[in-house]
């Protein structure tokens, strides 16, 4: 995936991998695909994101009318999936499912 493709027109899911080779207690995965949500949040949301929230539309509307916001709407994960981690310690091998580890869907909030 090249870098320039990441400067997309709107908030969307992008692949982000984290190398775990240096975490010696983690047997698997060695490369963890965490993903991230990237890109600007702009009106109209309806044509850009599948599910959008009225609150976000109102904030964006305020911004468009020139009212300064302490925090502008931002592109964040709205759905996650789990990740199995196989780790090793003095107590032996453990397989454990961790929730909310992988971003699966993005939205403007």
């Amino acid at each position, binding site marked *: *995936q090249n870098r320039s493709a990441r400067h997309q027109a709107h908030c*969307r*899911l*992008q*692949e982000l*991998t984290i190398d775990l080779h240096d975490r*010696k*207690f*983690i*047997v*698997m*995965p*060695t*490369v*963890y*695909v965490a*993903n991230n949500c990237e890109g600007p949040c702009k009106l109209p949301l309806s044509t850009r994101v599948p599910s959008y929230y009225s609150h976000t539309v109102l904030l964006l509307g305020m911004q468009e009318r020139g009212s300064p916001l302490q925090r502008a709407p931002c592109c964040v994960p709205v759905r996650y999936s789990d*990740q*199995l981690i*196989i780790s*090793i310690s003095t*107590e*032996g*091998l*453990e*397989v*454990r*499912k961790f929730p909310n580890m992988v971003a699966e869907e993005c939205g403007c909030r």
Partner: protein
Amino acid sequence: MGLPPGPPGARSRNLSCVSYKHPSVRGSLGGAGGGGPGARHVRCPPRHCCIGIWNQSHALVQGCWGGGGAGCPSPACAPSPAGAPGGAVLVCLCHGHLCNGNASGLVARPAP
């Protein structure tokens, strides 16, 4: 979302893998990899690999592995060391039919 293309073997059909868990292992690979009690084989969900983890020549966990996106380029199981250096843990990922039952270079004992 731009996942890298994986090995054709792991995607075009549902893999079958050897399924096993040593009594010393806590947790399990879940419905996908666990199988029933006594199950020796398991059918994986799409886009999964077979995984095998050994402590020297002694199998610890075998089953399906879908997490992590590392893919499993090899059809056969070629274990490599994992975990802390000096430890004896070996892991393989592969996409051949029941490929995680036998590891090249070690005498695997998949089930007692």
